């Protein structure tokens, strides 16, 4: 059962090949067997999962089932889950039992999906390797000595090892697409405002966006049908009609214009990764698309800009963790200042503190113009590059990451090298655009991701383009050998 797509599992449930309870127990058994080696779950919600599954079986029998009813899922531990610990992989929230559900969680509950547990991640989603988690690093199922990517590393590893049929993630600078690429999955970062951020613990509010990690574009479309939509509880949610993301998957690609930015194939790109990405673009050409070379001249500014905007917003968002109303509190504070400082100093890990301090500095009196204001101006230039490109082309293609999965420990003590692993994904968040990563081959046994960037609210088109490639290739169907059975 664990090698099937959600589309095929949903059919199995309807035909009575297996019940949701059987399916859920199968995945829980796999989690018990393999989570020790991978560490992709912070919390396994076995009781919740079985109760969800029994209710789903009742709905299936009564003919009240939604497409996802009875399908087990893993949720990134950044989404608040009522009555279940929501840690954001931080000591700060190790004892935090969320008092409400995120809108995304509520939507999956209403659809009858089953929650297997809460997936590991980088602390407060700050990281690109899942090594900053308070609960320890996550292994990449393709080679457990390597990182799964981050910050949605637990979600990606769980799906790649077939411990969950799909998972939720969030993407602030590449945190869905980069782990999807390094683990051989399909991961979609929607348009800013497409998926509700309510109950999704905030990192950088102008960039954060939730989305699916799945085995196929079709499965990602099924998840998007539940996740996307206007939410009045999120003041940045955008009130736009939501299409059926599955409706146009099989359309032909004729007439599609693909832009290939020369800046995405320069220094720093691993040669083997570059070749596989070029080969995938070549395949699209054979499938009827036209390839156009384009330029995104301000690409080189995206990482520096991001590392001002994201820390600035993080320093403001994380000021809510004060040790007073919830979360970690230090022992025996002597006064209120001591309570704040030690609760935060002891509750946050090194990378989170680094970013809070960078943000605090960038926003402090006298430095605002040089850092934050300048970054917001560059953000406009970066966004304008895309706007110009989309006049000429329908989508933009390139690598998701400069290399395949790197070895654990490689970049942990070198923040700049770690930041550069998101060099191709960051600009998309700065511009608020949707983008998807899909597997397009293997280099030395490790998956390589192709990134497809679309115009605002073009998620359906991205899923369609990804789906057509997956009809012609089987990279997405490969299972890491150690997790086959």
């Amino acid at each position, binding site marked *: 059962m664990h090698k099937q797509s959600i589309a095929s599992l949903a059919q199995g449930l309807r035909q009575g090949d297996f019940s949701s309870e059987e399916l859920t127990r199968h995945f829980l058994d796999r989690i018990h067997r393999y989570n020790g080696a991978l560490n992709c779950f912070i919390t396994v919600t076995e009781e919740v999962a079985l109760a969800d599954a029994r209710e789903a079986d009742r709905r299936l029998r009564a003919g009240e089932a939604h497409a996802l009813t009875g399908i087990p899922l893993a949720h990134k531990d950044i989404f608040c889950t009522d009555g279940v610990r929501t840690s954001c992989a931080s000591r700060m929230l190790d004892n935090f*039992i969320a008092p409400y559900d995120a809108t995304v969680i509520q939507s999956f509950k209403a659809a009858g999906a089953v929650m297997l547990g809460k997936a590991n991640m980088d602390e407060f989603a700050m990281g690109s390797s899942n090594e900053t988690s308070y609960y320890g690093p996550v292994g990449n199922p393709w080679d457990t000595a390597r990182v799964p990517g981050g910050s949605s590393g637990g979600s990606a590893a769980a799906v790649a090892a077939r411990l969950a049929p799909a998972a939720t993630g969030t993407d602030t600078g590449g945190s869905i697409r980069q782990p999807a690429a390094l683990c051989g999955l399909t991961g979609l970062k929607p348009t*800013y405002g497409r998926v509700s951020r309510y109950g999704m613990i905030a990192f950088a509010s102008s960039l954060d966006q939730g989305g699916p990690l799945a085995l196929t574009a079709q499965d990602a479309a099924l998840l998007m049908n539940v996740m996307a939509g206007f939410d009045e509880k999120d003041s*940045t949610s955008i009130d736009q009609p939501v299409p059926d993301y599955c409706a146009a998957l099989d359309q032909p690609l004729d007439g599609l214009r693909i832009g290939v930015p020369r800046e995405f194939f320069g220094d720093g790109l691993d040669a083997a990764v570059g070749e596989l990405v070029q080969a995938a673009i070549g395949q699209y050409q054979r499938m009827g698309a036209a390839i156009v070379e384009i330029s995104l001249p301000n690409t080189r500014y995206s990482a520096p800009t991001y590392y001002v905007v994201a820390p600035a917003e993080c320093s403001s968002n994380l000021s809510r963790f004060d040790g007073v109303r919830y979360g970690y509190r230090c022992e025996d504070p002597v006064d209120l200042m001591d309570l704040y400082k030690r609760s935060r100093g*002891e509750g946050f890990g090194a990378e989170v*503190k*680094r970013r809070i301090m960078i943000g605090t500095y960038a926003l402090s009196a006298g430095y605002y113009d040089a850092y934050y204001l300048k970054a*917001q*101006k560059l953000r406009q230039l970066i966004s304008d590059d895309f706007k110009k490109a989309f006049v000429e082309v329908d989508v933009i293609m390139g690598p998701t990451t400069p290399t395949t999965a790197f070895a654990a420990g490689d970049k942990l003590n070198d923040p700049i090298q770690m930041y550069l692993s998101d060099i191709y994904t960051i600009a998309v968040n700065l511009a608020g655009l949707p983008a998807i990563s899909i597997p397009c081959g293997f280099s030395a046994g490790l998956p390589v991701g192709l990134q497809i960037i679309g115009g605002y609210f073009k998620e359906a088109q991205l899923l369609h383009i990804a789906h057509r490639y997956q009809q012609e290739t089987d990279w997405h169907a490969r299972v890491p050998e150690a997790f086959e059975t």
Partner: protein
Amino acid sequence: MVLQRSDVEKIAHLARLAVSEEELAAYASSLSDILKFVERMDSADVSRVAPMAHPLDAVQRLREDAVRESSQREKFQAIAPRVEAGLYLVPKVIE
């Protein structure tokens, strides 16, 4: 920009973070590296660019000023570090 230990102390205070003596030097070095990295922004000419407020030029949505949430004090205080008689307890603020 190269930060000294004293700069880090000041930033850590503004951010309400306790940072140990031993950590100060390491933060001074890694924060300086990050600032040096973001200073790559300086080579861009943005003199005629307006700062971006929202990628889709959306504006803040307003709603009627009416109470919609119900009080859930017990539920919220159940996860607080220290409460008493419905109040959140902190060290004495006024001597």
